[in-house]
């Protein structure tokens, strides 16, 4: 019996990877620009794609924002069209990877909660008084508390407030007992 060979997914769809060999990032002004050479192809509408291109401002977006902070990074142009994906920013030279890391860290803002002083539930809203990692006090209001707490893992949670700000608790088990008691009900 002859074995039938199936077509692998990768034969049909190819992800455009942005690597140190085909791309160079530069910091122009306060943001990153990109010069990239991609394999030539023809787009759906017949327009030519690929070749050397220059983007004066690119946007980075994490594919797995809770799991892989510096891997699988999508690089987008101003119209949010994906130029390609960076497998791992550490594959670039140290200077570039640092630049990418800074850009990513700047885009994703979620201060870390170290201590919970109080959580007061009142009429469907909860009022949080917390201490951030840097010692600053953070007060925020959460609507529909249960649904606003995202559990990445049972211990790693993100809280989203009324204004869509995010707050992170990296490990609920590492909170002091008093703090833990205050959020236990929501976990």
């Amino acid at each position, binding site marked *: 019996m002859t074995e039938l060979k199936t077509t692998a997914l990768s034969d049909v769809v190819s992800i455009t990877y942005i690597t140190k060999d085909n791309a160079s990032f530069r910091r*122009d*002004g*306060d*943001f990153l620009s990109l010069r990239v050479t991609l394999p030539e192809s023809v787009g*759906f*509408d*017949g*327009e030519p794609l690929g070749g050397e291109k220059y983007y*004066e*401002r690119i*946007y980075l977006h994490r594919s797995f*924002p809770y799991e892989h902070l510096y891997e699988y990074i999508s690089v987008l142009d101003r*119209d949010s069209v994906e130029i390609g994906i960076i497998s791992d920013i550490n594959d670039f030279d140290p200077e570039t990877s640092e630049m990418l890391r*800074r850009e990513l*860290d*700047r*885009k*994703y*803002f*979620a*201060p*870390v909660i170290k201590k919970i002083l109080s959580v007061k539930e*009142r*009429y*469907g*809203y909860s*009022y949080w008084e917390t201490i*951030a*990692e*840097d010692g*600053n006090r953070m007060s925020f*209001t959460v*609507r*529909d508390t249960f649904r606003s707490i995202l559990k990445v893992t049972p211990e790693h949670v993100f809280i989203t407030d*009324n*204004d*869509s*700000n*995010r707050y992170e608790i990296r490990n609920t088990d590492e909170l002091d007992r008093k703090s833990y008691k205050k959020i*236990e*009900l929501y976990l």
Partner: protein
Amino acid sequence: MKDRIMLRNRLCTINPGVSPEDVIVAFPFDLAPEGDVKTDGFVAVTTSDVYVYEKDVLMLRLKSADIDEYIFSNGVGCVFAECVTNGVHRLLCRATMAQRDLISSIIWQLNRRMERSTYSYAYEEETDVKCPNCGRRYPPDSHVCPHCTAKKGYIKRVWEIAKPYRYFILASVLLYFISAGVQLLPAYLNKLLIDNYIQAEGAFERSASADFIIGFIGVILSLLGVNILTRLIGIVRGVTLIEAGTRMMVSLRSMVFDKIQRLSVSKISKRTAGELMNRVTDDTNQLQNFIMNDIGGFFEQMLIFLAVSVIIIAYDWRLAVLILIPVPIVIFANRAFHKFMHRVFHRQWVMNSRANTILHDIFSGIRVVKAYGSERREMERYDEATKNECEAQIRAESFFAKFSPLMSFLMGLGEFFLLYYVGTKILSHEMTLGDMQLFTTYVSIIYGPLRWLSNFPRRYERTMTSIVKIFDIIDEDVDVADKKDAVDMKIEGKIEFHDVSFGYDSGNNVLHGINLTVEPGDFVGIVGRSGVGKSTLINLVMRLYDVDDGSITIDGVDIRDISQSSLRSQIGVVLQETFLFSGTVYDNIAYAKPDATRDEVLAAAKLAGAHSFIMKMPDAYNTRVGERGHTLSGGERQRIAIARALLHDPRILILDEATASLDTETEKQIQDALQILSKNRTTLAIAHRLSTLRNATKLIVLDKGTVAEVGTHDELMRRGGIYYGLVMAQRQMSKMSAGA
């Protein structure tokens, strides 16, 4: 506005070279350019320069004339304001999400100012939304601070709603009072029975006398009377309360429902269907229960407690002290017990709902589960969840089993003190057996109200939460509202877009600068890639959303000046996914025109090509469809929707991928029906399959949120632009599939 003036003054103080009149706008930001660091800074745009200050230190100064463009961009959990000078992107500031709407509006106005030299501060009303009392920002889409809203205010409003029923409620409270008094009587009558008759001195000798017998039977009859009275009061009170509570719930429900219906699609879609259902049903129910059971109950229990306390104290204060000593302990223990119970039972509830979610998921997706042979994996997932639930339940129930008797014991403790005290008093002839009976009854009564009252705050809070949530919806601003002087008008069908911009969230414009004219009777095809804003365009014509900038007119009248009912009654819509309500096929077609005659419905169905398949079903037009009804295929549903639109006889017809999910033959039939339908009316049609738009009088090609091309099929093909590309690509595809 306050912020802007304050920052303007701050700028002029730090930098005396700037004159206040030159400041166009100034806005604060709260994040350092990098890192999780909060800061206090502001950006000021003057006629000549742009300044960025952080902690009053100048960080950046740019010449306004050098700026080509301002950009607002969303981070995750933060936002950015940027500008472009000579092709270089500069960061003006980074801020938390609280400032998102403000900054995006300002950036929008700054760009507009460069084009038209005008700047409007109208956004400040929407974005300057802090509670003057506590400084907290209002929740999105609300102008009420939930933190500072006095409970009194809400109770007053509930009382307003209760106005038609307040006599019922007052009557029931009164009945509760009476019943409280009546409940205390049997104990006293029992004491009389024992002391004056059963245990009275010389009772045996006097037992044959008429006085004694009459008195004896009198007391027993009184006991019977009290019992009957209690039941009667219970019946009257029950009926009164059901009347008041239910009627009030119904009016509250219709208030909430009416409000939800008036909210725009964008506001409604921010909440889940489940959440809205909760508001309409659960929260109003909670309030009904509170009115029916708790308000009167509160007075009743309070009165019983006070009356019993007063009676005991008046009788013998030492006895009162003995009985009342455990009271604080009991209250405290009861509260602690409930708090803990709440915790463990809540955990059980969470585990239970998790297991249910898994079950719901598996059953809804059973075909997928079976197709991928993942039954075992799902089984394990469910097992794990039920195991957790089981553990939580054991923990909760065993705790309850252990501590609930302890609580009862604590509550009964007073009785032992009482027995000892009264027992010694009886032995020394200071008290009678009747007294003992009276007090044991009162002691057993007094803990009832205590237990009830100590749980009352929790019920009260829960009800207040429901009330606040209800008013949260009732108070929500209606963003797509009819103007006071909105007119009803007969539509001819000329649609014009004047420089229309729109985005679902701030900072993300889906459409910008759209200018269009559609003549009455035109069949206009709207073409473009997915996500380019085609559906948004027609949503704006239907006024499901209001434009952010510019205007849409119909026959020269701004659609915001036309009453929504008048506008929508003359627009017919056929969407890709047709929703059929639970009901019959007939009901669903007649939905657009409830007063249609049977003949009209039949004619519409016939024209839509629905009649033949309807007649193949045993129950024909009376076939039940929708959630629990007959399942119709996509094409059949679509034809019902078209019949619905035909019956509606609209001036403007909107077809959003109306035939996309159908096979070619059905599509051809429906296209023919649509051809007839669109005659003499303005039709806007979206279609991916470009062949369906061949007969369009005009095609509009959208690209990147703007109108890229306008013309007939032939014109656009000659032009060789985006439309040409799309047609060619589709031809190639159909060739390929034909070859395959």
